[in-house]
């Protein structure tokens, strides 16, 4: 820490953030009469672009502008602060100047917020708080929020108000180590100092005692700093990857066997009277967290008790007619998967570079996102810049074409003369909007920070070129938010442009001139929420918030403002897959709102509070948890017996009026959006030898396994359909048998081929092109999930099966 230094040329220093109304409460090495003076606390960028926290006393700032002192005249321009002006100090400039306190961020070790956001302490040395400041307006948290843009911090393990700077200059950290501990007790922990100063007079004894007790404020540097360097989630991801490969290794042992038999265990005791609820077997079993059967039993119990409250059972002669007050089935807990790894991605391309298993890839990405290192490549496909089916050489051609196209569009506006521009107001307006927003886009991120940052120019060029690409749409606020993470990741102007154009294609309705697209989404969101969480929807309606306008920001830029860059990349790539249904981004909204439901309803939040609460969720949301919740809600909704056409339309599902079978293989726009994976890759129908096992009751249908050359599911034949018709509950036991068969040599390229084995090859009656098949009165749809989950759907009942074999086969 160095004190004093107004010798910096103010022109080149820049106040990045200024907070007025901050009193200096203590500072080691400063005399007592310097304390308790009011000033401003700033984050300053120095000429050499290093940064520091700087406190300036107000009397320094507010020296009258009639001063002749050149040096100070400049400081004067910082302003006359009316609200915090304290005034009448001596104008001994040298003294005042010496009172500036600077804490270079490179030296900052810890800081702490306390006393109800009124106090902030800083430390550049282990063990001692050197400075503390009092925030008149009690808003230290805002300063912290901005400070955190400039230093990477971790919270201290034992004190959530203490932030440890974890991106230090390693040299200084080492240097300071030696004597630091010794200083602990010789130097006055300054937290104590200011209370001493103010209290000593009135209560000498107590104050002294307090001072000693406050020695506990001393900070010890454990290995927090080291731990904090890595993100927890990164670590977890690592572990998962390791355990995945461990799993792959262990299953590789069984590879030599002819078959691998995975039996998905849950043997359920037959329980009557459960309507068509989804039995969702999550991944937990695989993770060893919980036995699937336990989970299912739980779900059943829950749904049973839910039923008791809300079901009126009417006995009719033939069937039990159960009318259920619209209660959703229990929400399955669906853990997130691991990101698509480099190895898998490489393996999913054939030798020419075509991505063969598009649905599989999308499923994988939907489950776990994409590993950061391959994002630049995968995103180009997800954003429809590269077609999945193109070979390496075709892509090269495409790139060449697209690069030319980009630059010719760029030239269109670059070559515009000033005179032309002056007579082209529509263009001028767009240009000025772009300029204004570029300067306000993610400037706290190092990639876009600082004056004259060349990346800002690229950002601007892309947006301007987009104006030419789509002049009618032009530039709309929010677009710079959409582009910024793309450019940040891809780095390249042309790639970023085309990916941006692809993303814009997906969200074009957000930017309609009349905002019709936004309004429709808000309406859909309201409908979805009403279905998923009627209580909350009702509350919002009562509070005049039924129009859901408070979710406007979420939807307009797809949550860009709510998450960090890291998290938004994850969320976006998941949403780009278009899985598991159309408008899944609305489920993200529902998931967030559902999480906040208790607060919103419990505290009886009204119109303004709801908006405030929702706005303030920004940067406090857990992306993985939300994705998982959203998927859970999705499953609840699609398996709800009372699923309405209104909701079906939102999800891109066929409406009830039309039959499942007819719509399931429509090749139109809902192809991408619908969950129906195209699995008809293997079409050899083979022997089917369905066995049915009543297992004592006719409510239990057992699907028995059959060994065959191909992997498949065996379903009961037509003659067993009665079981399904009459069963009030469908208990399904599934055995999946895999045959390990290599198409060619077990190289990377062929692993992709083995994916086809997850498709069913046999069906008792007939086979649907989408991979489903007919049994009895309806069609069983088969969706192949990533990370080895397979979902079977029959008449709205969904069963998910975890088959680790899917990826084991890839090993």
């Amino acid at each position, binding site marked *: 820490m160095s004190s004093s230094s107004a010798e910096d040329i103010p022109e080149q220093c*820049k*106040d*990045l*953030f*200024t*907070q*007025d*109304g901050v009193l200096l409460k203590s500072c080691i090495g400063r005399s007592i009469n310097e304390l308790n003076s009011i000033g401003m606390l700033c984050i300053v960028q120095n000429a050499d672009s290093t940064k520091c926290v700087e406190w300036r006393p107000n009397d320094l700032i507010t020296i009258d502008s009639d001063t002749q002192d050149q040096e100070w005249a400049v400081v004067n*321009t*910082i*302003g*006359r*602060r*009316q*609200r*915090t002006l304290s005034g009448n100090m001596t104008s001994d400039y040298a003294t005042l100047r010496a009172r500036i306190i600077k804490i270079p961020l490179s030296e900052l070790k810890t800081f702490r917020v306390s006393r109800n956001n009124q106090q902030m302490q800083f430390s550049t040395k282990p063990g001692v708080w050197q400075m503390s400041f009092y925030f008149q*307006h009690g*808003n230290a948290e*805002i*300063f912290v929020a*901005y400070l955190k843009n400039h230093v990477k911090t971790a919270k201290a393990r034992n004190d959530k108000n203490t932030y440890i700077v974890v991106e230090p200059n390693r040299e200084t950290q080492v240097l300071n180590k030696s004597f630091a501990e010794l200083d602990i007790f010789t130097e006055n922990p300054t937290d104590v100092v200011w209370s001493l100063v103010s209290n000593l007079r009135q209560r000498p004894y107590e104050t002294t005692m307090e001072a000693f007790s406050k020695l506990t404020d001393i900070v010890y540097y454990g290995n927090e700093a080291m731990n904090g360097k890595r993100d927890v989630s990164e670590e977890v991801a690592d572990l998962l990857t390791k355990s995945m490969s461990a799993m792959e290794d262990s299953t590789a042992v069984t590879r030599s066997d002819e078959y691998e038999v995975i039996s998905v265990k849950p043997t359920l005791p037959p329980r009557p009277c459960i309507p068509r609820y989804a039995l969702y077997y999550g991944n937990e079993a695989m993770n060893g967290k919980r036995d699937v059967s336990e989970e299912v039993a739980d779900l059943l119990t829950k749904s049973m008790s839910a039923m008791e409250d809300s079901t009126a059972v009417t006995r009719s002669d033939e069937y039990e007619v159960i009318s259920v007050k619209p209660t959703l089935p229990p929400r399955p807990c669906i853990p997130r998967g691991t990101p698509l790894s480099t190895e898998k991605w490489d393996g999913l391309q054939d030798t020419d570079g075509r991505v063969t298993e598009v649905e599989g890839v999308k499923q994988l990405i939907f489950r776990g996102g994409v590993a950061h290192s391959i994002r630049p490549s995968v995103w180009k496909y997800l954003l429809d810049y590269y077609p999945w089916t193109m070979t390496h050489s075709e892509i090269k051609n495409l790139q060449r074409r697209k690069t030319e196209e980009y630059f010719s569009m760029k030239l269109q506006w670059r070559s515009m003369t000033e005179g032309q521009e002056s007579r082209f107001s529509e263009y001028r*307006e767009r240009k*000025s*909007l772009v300029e*204004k*927003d570029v300067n*306000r*886009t*993610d*400037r*706290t991120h190092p990639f876009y*920070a600082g004056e004259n940052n060349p990346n800002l120019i690229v950002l601007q060029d892309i947006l301007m070129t987009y104006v030419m690409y789509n002049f009618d749409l032009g530039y*709309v*606020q*929010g677009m*710079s*938010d959409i582009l910024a993470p793309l450019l940040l990741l891809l780095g390249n102007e042309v790639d970023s442009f085309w990916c941006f154009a692809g993303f814009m294609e997906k969200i074009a309705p957000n*930017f309609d*001139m*009349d*905002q019709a697209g*936004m*309004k429709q989404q808000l309406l859909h969101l309201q409908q979805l929420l009403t279905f998923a969480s009627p209580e909350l929807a009702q509350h919002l309606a009562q509070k005049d918030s039924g*129009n859901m*306008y*408070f979710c*406007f*920001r979420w939807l*307009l*830029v797809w949550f860009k*403002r709510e998450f960090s860059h890291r998290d938004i990349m994850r969320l976006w790539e998941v949403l780009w897959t278009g899985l598991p249904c159309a408008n899944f981004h609305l489920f993200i909204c529902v998931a967030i709102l559902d999480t906040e439901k208790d607060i919103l309803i419990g505290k009886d939040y009204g119109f*303004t509070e709801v*908006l*405030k609460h929702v*706005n303030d969720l920004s940067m406090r949301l857990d992306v993985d948890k939300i994705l998982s919740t959203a998927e859970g809600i999705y499953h609840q909704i699609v398996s709800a017996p009372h699923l309405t056409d209104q909701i079906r339309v939102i999800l891109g599902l066929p409406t009830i009026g039309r039959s499942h079978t007819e719509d399931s293989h429509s090749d139109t726009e809902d192809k991408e959006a619908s969950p129906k994976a195209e699995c008809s890759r293997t079409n050899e129908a083979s022997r089917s030898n369905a066995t049915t096992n009543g297992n004592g009751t006719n409510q239990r249908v057992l699907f028995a396994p059959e060994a065959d050359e191909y992997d498949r599911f065996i379903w009961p034949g037509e003659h067993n359909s009665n079981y399904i018709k009459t069963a009030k509950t469908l208990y399904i036991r599934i055995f999946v048998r895999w045959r390990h068969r290599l198409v060619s040599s077990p190289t990377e390229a062929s692993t992709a081929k083995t994916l086809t084995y997850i498709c069913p090859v046999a069906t008792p009656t007939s086979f649907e092109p989408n991979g489903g098949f007919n049994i009895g009165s309806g069609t069983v749809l088969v969706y192949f999930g990533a990370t080895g989950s397979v979902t079977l759907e029959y008449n709205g009942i969904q069963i998910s099966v975890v088959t680790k074999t899917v990826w084991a086969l890839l090993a």
Partner: protein
Amino acid sequence: MAKTYDCLFKLLLIGDSGVGKTSILFRFSEDAFNISFISTIGIDFKIRTIDLDGKKVKLQIWDTAGQERFRTITTAYYRGSMGIMLVYDVTNEKSFENIKNWIRNIEENASADVEKMILGNKCDLDDKRQVSKERGEQLAIDYQIKFVETSAKDSLNVEYAFYTLARDIKAKMEKKQEASNPPGARSGAHVLRASDQQRKPPSWLSRCSLL
């Protein structure tokens, strides 16, 4: 639960994108300025309670997105506002010309008795100025609206502007209430009564109950 304020005023900031609405609000509510602000998407508000002639007045100040396209959404929040700050940027001619449009926009969407004030922001940037102070003043005279040049960066006149607007609202409210009260009930200079009669005045006045 004890109320920590006597009266709640809902205020609104409008004006073209980039004129500094959010910065002005941040200056007023946090007494701070941030160089790297982000554009406003949708709508937000901040609260500050001020002392006005002995009354604690809670100001709920709404900040809207400036771009025209979002107006269909943002105007939904005009309802119930008692005071509106019309902001332009003295370094941007266009934003000044647009004040007229914004006034029309208010007339269409806000209640008729809403108090208004025009702010010419960024007056610290004298070297980039495009709109003179005189022109601002003239515009204000034309519309009979109060006017002041501000700087969110240098904290110039921001406090003044909000206090002035709040005071005008309060004065208007007092006048109306006096008018509706029997003459005998009139007393001290700034004693405001809770809208005691259960009559329902059509405007926002009714919503502000004073203790």
